């Protein structure tokens, strides 16, 4: 019976990690449904971008209040996780505070964790107020109704609970140390949890030990549960922000890719030696579909972005279309892409890894044409995104499908395009009049 805690701990740990691994593999499989993007090969620049934008949070502080609060939570979480390492070793070996031997360094570490934990709690409370009491506009847009709203609140609750458990674990430990209970040697400094110690004064030693153990277990189990919650949540960004900023575009924002499949066709048409009436060769591949009507038509970098989206709405709040009451919201474009991709993934899960046509697609079933045509391609959303997501690229790919596969552009745009085709200008002017401005006044 002596090893029961160690064995239970090992089982919980392995189960938590195995489940997480399963989710990560699904995530990778789903992202790989996308097509190969045209990527520039400047990896030095990519590492720099990742360090600056994801690690350094450079885009977050454009909005100082939420930016600085977010850095607190982020730094707090990363650093407090060093403590998790100790918990895991203790759990497996049956030791208690194995790093205590570090002496003053240990005291310093524990003290920093405690202060960070307090700051995280404060920041999370501010976040909660912004979402639920102040009701900052970008958090209450239509696409945030239901699960996205609950998800955001739930994350805040989990974070407070985890921090509280961590502090409780320390407070009871400190109390036990003060009582010189066996197994609780003097270790650590407790600048925050010392204020919680009086709660346990006069309590039976056995009860305090029970609370200490309970807090310790709930803390580590909570972390494992949270790890596995990521896949179902916008909180996935804590992992995917790194690859996503790495693969973010290095091109000027105004530059759209030129479709290679189209280039080939145009070359053929312009080639004076090509026979326009030649029958297609027997072994000709089926012509590539132009643009995107479903998630499989998008690039895998766009699908990665969809899973990375933090649902912060910075894009939407800067979007001129959204600001003037149009249906378009770049955040919704990303959320829809992710939700559809998840649906396709679930479909594959129950069909032995193969996607079985479900009669649905990203276009119309998730993203309406009205949204797509409202975009001014202004790049405000791309500029605003703290994790290098490009919602505009998905809008453009879907427009390409509408126009080149469906000939379904708004009538006025068809008119504009036929002008370009016939007169070389978007208006019905004669190309021969192009120089008339010289002689006008």
């Amino acid at each position: 019976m002596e090893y029961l805690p160690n064995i239970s701990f090992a089982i919980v740990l392995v189960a938590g990690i195995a489940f997480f691994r399963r989710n990560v593999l699904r995530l990778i499989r789903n992202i790989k449904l996308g097509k190969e993007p045209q990527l520039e090969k400047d990896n030095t620049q990519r590492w720099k971008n990742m360090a600056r934008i994801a690690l350094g949070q450079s885009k977050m502080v454009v909005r100082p209040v939420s930016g600085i609060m977010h850095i607190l939570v982020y730094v707090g979480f990363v650093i407090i996780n060093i403590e998790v390492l100790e918990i895991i070793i203790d759990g497996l070996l049956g030791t208690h505070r194995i790093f205590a031997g570090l002496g003053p360094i240990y005291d310093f570490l524990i003290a920093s964790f405690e202060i960070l934990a307090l700051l995280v709690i404060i920041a999370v409370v501010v976040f909660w107020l912004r979402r639920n009491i102040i009701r900052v506009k970008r958090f209450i847009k239509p696409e945030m109704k239901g699960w996205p709203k609950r998800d955001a609140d739930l994350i805040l609750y989990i974070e407070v609970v985890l921090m509280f458990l961590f502090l409780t674990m320390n407070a009871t430990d400190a109390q036990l140390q003060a009582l010189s209970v066996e197994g609780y040697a003097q270790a650590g400094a407790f600048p925050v949890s010392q204020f919680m110690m009086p709660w346990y004064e006069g309590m039976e030693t056995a009860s305090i030990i029970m609370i200490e153990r309970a807090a310790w277990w709930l803390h580590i189990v909570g972390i494992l549960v949270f790890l596995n919650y990521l896949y179902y949540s916008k909180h996935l960004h804590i992992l995917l922000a790194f690859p996503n900023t790495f693969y973010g575009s290095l091109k000027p924002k105004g530059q759209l890719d030129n479709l290679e499949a189209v280039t080939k066709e145009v070359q053929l048409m312009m080639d004076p030696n090509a026979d326009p009436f030649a029958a297609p060769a027997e072994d000709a591949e089926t012509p590539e579909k132009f643009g995107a009507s479903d998630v499989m038509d998008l690039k895998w970098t766009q699908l990665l972005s969809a899973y990375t989206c933090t649902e912060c709405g910075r894009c939407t709040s800067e979007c001129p279309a959204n600001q003037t009451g149009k249906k378009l919201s770049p955040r919704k474009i990303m959320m829809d892409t992710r939700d559809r991709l998840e649906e396709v993934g679930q479909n594959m899960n129950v069909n032995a890894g193969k996607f079985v046509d479900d009669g649905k697609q990203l276009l119309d079933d998730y993203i309406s044409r009205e949204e797509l045509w409202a975009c001014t391609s202004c790049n405000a959303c791309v500029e605003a995104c703290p994790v290098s997501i490009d919602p505009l690229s998905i809008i453009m790919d879907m427009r390409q499908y509408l126009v080149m596969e469906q000939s379904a552009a708004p009538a006025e745009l068809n008119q504009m395009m036929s002008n370009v085709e016939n007169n070389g200008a978007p208006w019905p002017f004669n190309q021969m009049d192009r120089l008339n401005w010289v002689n006008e006044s």
Partner: protein
Amino acid sequence: MSEGIKVPTMASLFAEGKQPEVLFWVGCAGSFDDRAKKITRAFVKILNKADVSFAVLGTEESCTGDPAKRAGNEFLFQMQAVTNIEVMNAYEVKKIVTTCPHCFNTIKNEYPGLGGEYEVIHHTQLINQLFEEGRLSLEGGSYKGKRITYHDPCYLGRANNIYQAPRDLIQKLDAELVEMKNCRKRGLCCGAGGSQMFKDAEKGDKEVNIARTEEALETKPDIIAAACPFCNTMMTDGVKIKEKEASIVVKDIAELIAGADDL
């Protein structure tokens, strides 16, 4: 006034065996739109004054394909691009200046992949260079002390990171440059990009150009400066709808420079 503007075409120079330093890409708006044509002429006056060796393609120029590409018609875009590139490569064009940020962006960023590699600059950059080289000079002139707010065109600013050149020119006018609350990287769109210029807006509660004009009016400007013919149209309309056209004018930077010098 058009008296004496000199606008050589590539074809005429070519016939004389000459090659200009720079091709002035006029663009569809600059060629056909009544308001934008004034900008084109103002810019030519500056080029003439500084004695810049330039030429235009004239009737050999055709739409860059930008509105088609942003509407989703990659096919039409590439047809336009390849045709234009063929013409320009035949004239051995090396350097291009344009008054339209959309043409600028397309030729600079999207033509190289299709065989059209040129040095492309925006007219605000070229005018700045002319000042630096001492080929142009300005004594404050008629805009001294005026409040000017500058609207960043999306395709010049965010799309290509050019924020300073137009501002430097406004400063040369001895005018007071007042920034809107959303400027530079966070500048609000005028509503014309992505082919919106050519269609009605989707249902909403406001037009984008009104929203942007309101931001401009908050700075209490005498002049709203633009650097894009489409932004110019959108802001001019906005000022009219807000019934401010008696007190506020919308001008391209080229017009301001030419106007200050009484060209």
